């Protein structure tokens, strides 16, 4: 492991200098010149969007007219594309209030009426298995403390067992996860790990002795204990493995605790940018805020609108509709901000971080309860020959979101031929 990280390069970032442990067994071995790694970012909006978020389906190609909600993206049009008419065909029947649960899994978590809820692996976790192996964190899951519009799950990410991965909503906690703290030393980390292990060992003893006297049904409970112990143990092992490689220094001051709404999202983007730049991770998922954005709308206009009511706006005269349009514009402003941040970071080969990162923003819901032809924005990825700046319209009600996920996995270099119900991916995304 150490040899892999011995070569380090100093990169001048936009606002600061970050030590980048440049490494990638995938690329370093095959090419002479340093090639930056590929990264993936997935953003979800929760509930669906207004009709002003969609370009006219007939108006495709490079010169399509940007819809009203996308004004903030006018300057960025060469950097992103709009993908019309994609649907998660397998999960059309899922609860129409769940905008995120099956977004990245493209599967039906209740495939047979009468069976309990069981999700499958999400595409970010497939990516993490391949491109995240050599990073301190194979993937990082971000979420919001707002509850509306998401549906089941602690984040967008689901592991190979179909279990939801914990998402962190507090930017401060992510800050501490990513960057070195002054007080931590290798000695104290080693001590901490040892102590944590002894606590897990003791807990395991109680769980085991209890489990022995239980019937199969009750064993489900002790099984949860075994599983959480394994999870914590795995994290400890990883921490131990990385103990000797110091975390990067923080390029900016720690944010306030519990930041939400627009400032929260912008801070998450700063953290993402720094983590991708320092190659701390290559895969991010982020559940964007919703209710806290509507709080901002309420402060601005004096109208308070609940998230669910917003999506059932009725006519365009209502304040619900105004709130939804406002939120959609806000989403585009945030998306533009992320593009700007990634575009400012110059990589080892002179390309930008944006060129090497493929970002998607969307939802599993179009508008109201409609789960077909959902909104999808795709940005970045030029290094992987992703063609941006166009409006691509696929076959209405038929084209699969899983094919986009497969194409994104291919961009990242994952050797997979199929994801969920995909049918080979979209070749027209690439030049």
């Amino acid at each position, binding site marked *: 492991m150490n040899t892999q990280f011995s070569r380090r390069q100093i990169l001048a970032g936009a606002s600061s200098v970050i030590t980048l442990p440049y490494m990638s067994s995938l690329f370093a071995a095959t090419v002479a010149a340093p090639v930056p790694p590929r990264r993936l970012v997935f953003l979800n909006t929760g509930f669906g969007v207004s009709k002003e978020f969609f370009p006219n389906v007939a108006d495709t190609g490079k010169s399509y007219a940007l819809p009203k909600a996308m004004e903030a993206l006018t300057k960025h049009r060469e950097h992103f594309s709009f993908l019309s008419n994609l649907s998660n065909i397998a999960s059309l029947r899922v609860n129409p209030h769940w905008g995120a649960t099956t977004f990245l899994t493209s599967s039906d978590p209740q495939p047979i*009426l009468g069976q309990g809820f069981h999700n499958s692996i999400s595409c970010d976790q497939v990516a993490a298995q391949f491109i995240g192996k050599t990073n301190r964190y194979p993937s990082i899951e971000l979420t919001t403390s707002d509850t509306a519009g998401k549906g089941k799950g602690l984040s967008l990410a689901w592991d190979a067992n179909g279990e939801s991965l914990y998402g962190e909503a507090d930017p401060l906690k992510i800050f501490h996860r990513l960057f070195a703290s002054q007080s931590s030393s290798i000695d104290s980390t080693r001590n901490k790990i040892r102590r944590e292990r002894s606590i897990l060992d003791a807990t395991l003893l109680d769980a085991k002795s209890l489990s022995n006297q239980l019937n199969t049904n009750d064993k489900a409970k002790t099984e949860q204990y075994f599983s959480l112990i394994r999870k914590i143990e795995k994290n400890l092992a990883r921490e131990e493995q990385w103990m000797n490689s110091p975390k990067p220094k923080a390029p900016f001051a720690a944010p306030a605790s519990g930041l939400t709404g627009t400032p929260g999202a912008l801070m998450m983007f700063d953290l993402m940018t720094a983590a991708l730049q320092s190659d701390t991770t290559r895969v991010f998922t982020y559940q964007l805020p919703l209710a806290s954005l509507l709080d901002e709308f309420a402060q601005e206009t004096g109208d308070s609108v609940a998230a669910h009511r917003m999506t059932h706006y009725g006519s365009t005269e209502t304040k619900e509709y105004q709130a939804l349009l406002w939120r959609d514009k806000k989403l585009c402003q945030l998306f533009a901000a992320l593009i700007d941040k990634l575009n400012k970071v110059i990589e080892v080969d002179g390309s930008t971080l944006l060129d090497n990162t493929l970002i998607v923003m969307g939802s599993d819901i179009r508008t109201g309860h409609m789960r077909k032809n959902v909104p999808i924005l795709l940005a970045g990825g030029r290094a992987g020959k992703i063609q941006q700046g166009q409006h691509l319209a696929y076959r209405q009600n038929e084209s699969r979101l899983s094919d986009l996920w497969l194409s994104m996995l291919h961009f990242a270099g994952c050797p997979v031929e199929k994801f969920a119900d995909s049918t080979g991916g979209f070749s027209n995304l690439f030049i």
Partner: protein
Amino acid sequence: MSSLISSPTVLGACFFLCITCSYPVHAETAPVSVESITPFLKQYCIDCHGSKKSKGDLRLDQLSTSLSNERTAETWQEVLDALNMSEMPPEDEDQPPRAAMIAAIDHLTNRLYKAGKQLTDKTQATMRQLNRREYHNSIKSLLGVPVDISRLPNDNTFEGFDRVGSVQEMSAQLFNSYRAIGKQALDKAFSRALGKQGAETFLIQAETEHNKYISRQLKIRNKSLEAESRLISKGQENSRRLDRTAKKYVVSALYQTIPATKTGYVFVGDENGSPQEFSTPFPNDNIGTYHLTIRAALTHPSPDKPYIAQVSLIGEDGGSTPPKDIGIFKIENTSPETQTFEFELNRSTDTLDTIVIKVLEPSIKGGGHESHYLHTIKQAEAKLKTALEKGNKLPLPLYPQNSTPTGKTCFLWLDSINIVGPLKNPSSDQAFTFFTSKPPTQPEAESVYARKIIDKFTRHVFRGQAPADNYITALHQIYLSYREIGTTPEPARKAISPRDKKRIRMLTRKKRNNDTTTIDPEFIAALREALSVALSSPRFLLHAESSSDKNLSALDLAKRLSYFLWSAPPDTQLNKLANQNKLAEPRVLRSEVERMLAAPRASSFIDSFTTQWLGLDRLQMIVVHKGYKKFNEKIRTAFKEETLSFSRELIRENLSARNFIDSDFTMANGLLVDFYKLGEPHIDGFKRVAIPTDSPRGGLLGQGAILTLTSSGERTSPVLRGNFVLSRMLGSPPPPPPPNVPQLQFDGSPAMPIRERLRAHTQSAQCASCHQRFDPIGFALENFDTIGDWRDNTSVETMVLLRKVKGSRKNTDLAEINSRSELRGETLNGYEGVKQYLSSKEDVVTNHILRSMLIYALGRPLGFSDNQWVSELHKKWQVNDYRMRDLVQIIVSSQPFQSQ
């Protein structure tokens, strides 16, 4: 029932039958059938999906109408999807009439929903874990200290209930939270054990802060007035701003002239004469029980009623923590004969950090003897403005020197607040005793001593279950590694962070004279690390029952009973009865249930059950539009308390559950008596108040909490109200809306009457099939507005709705309320009609209450296989006239409650 509808000839008739049977009281265990869809299929589907053609490989003539397995149900779901999305029948084929389409969708939707539940029938109990409430109470009872659980995530729920094992989850994140809170609990328990947790006394003199504030305000206003005066001289006067500043200045200056302000805080009202609040930060950071003493009096004799004030605890964090009312007090004496009011206050979270005292009555606004005060302000204001316009120098002598311009006006005067606490918790007869003797100083002896504590503590918090030997050894090893003896080569001292050291020093310092124990702080710290592991171990956090056969052991029964009725571990008496093996004797059990229900701790059960059954939490989330002038946070709190204490009254007085449908009383305080117009308001807090014969109230649906939580905060929602009746009272929730049905478009004014607006629901068959089952119930409740106030027309609502549209403030015609509606052939005439409708279905309502309480009591879902014994219990309860305390007894004495 299936034989009844197996050969229907008329579609309409058959669906009518289904609907009348769709609230099964004594439901059968046979598979759900969709037989009655057959005529519809024959007419519109079989031509293409039958023996002649079988398009899409689908033969509906061969598809079983009995939803006995998942595959069949799945295929029927596809049929429903096709109907919902208007994909079938194809456009060029014969289209069914609307009514038939509605009936078909309705039938399939509801039958499949039911079949889904039947096929997931998992009735076997999964071991429960402590929910938040039980965790808090267990720590409090077993360690004798309260802990702050506000950081624990909300419990997962099944049909709203938080005690169901199969949906509860234990995650790495939760495990870490329990570790952190467990350590805090131990810190407190140690400090209590070492006698260091002394109650502190704080005396808040009410005038101190406020008088400083008034002086500062006067200085600031003085500066502003000078600035205004300069602007006036330049001819740039802003009269609105000037008025505002002058008024504030005048009010502050007048405040200083009142003699009583030298020795206390005087509630003069704000510059408009509205009542004013006194607030001060809570002086102690700790949570726990406090004793509060308020000293107050009136400045002058009150010409009419006595003053009534309320003291509460609020959070300064933007209202995210609901305020906690401490008490209401009545002030009659005139200074200097000060009155003293004492309150016990339980501060459950440190986010509640501000004490607020508020005058409830009289409202200062509105003339009477207060008008003299307002008049004085007006005069001084005029005087000040004239002086400013003349360019006179500031400050002005606004009021004559050493005079009292307010004269003998009566004000409420607050002298002081005295706070003592946190007090030791008196109710913890189970609290663990850590140190019965001084720990030995010799290392090996100390280690043995520590192991004994670890062993004893673990047995104690595991509630009678024996820990494994190797587990105790592991905890002991953790203790040793921190104690720096032998096992850990690393310097263990380093393991204790500087912050921990400081905290431990604090704990062991400041010893009282009568306490001669000196215990090494590092010994305590090492012990804490070991013991905290027990507080996040399975045997503490899970409700493991150690009974070997089907029948519960006496000890397990005691625990089940105690966590059911108290959300806490058994007390000494229960444990004693269990150890003597007497608890299962019917007479003993019966009297124990009576004893437990009579204890204050029983409200933990009654309030949690009522809140979860009715979904009361939603009340807190409704943002009521400010156009509803009668609504405020006091009313919101009172609404909730009304519904909770109504439920408590039914259980404590053993009254019939029929009172939930209709009652001749409610529980109300003065505020609610006034709001509901039930007679002369009283001030004794919540008590039973008779409902006058001409009042429309009575029953749950006449209560403000239910009516408000089923509205949007701006307007009523017949959809939510109807849905509430179906879900919470009849136990037959409508299925979730189908996905991929386009949303309805409304044209016209946002103030369009709700009934007209919701007419759209009847236009599409997909919507109508479900909405026709509950919208009409909501229409019949339309005489209650958004906040549950009685109305004859929509004037207030229309005003609220129009206010949101720019430039549209024109007064539209008032819409008279029409509260007559048709519910599938039955006429509902207003709320009285709804009461009659529900009374005619009282067996369904009571059955739902029974099932709900069973889910809460057993901590598991009820399945179709439970129907037999549940209906037997229901019959038994019916004999007891559906009395509520009898219900608890019936449940406790039932076989499922007493077996594994």
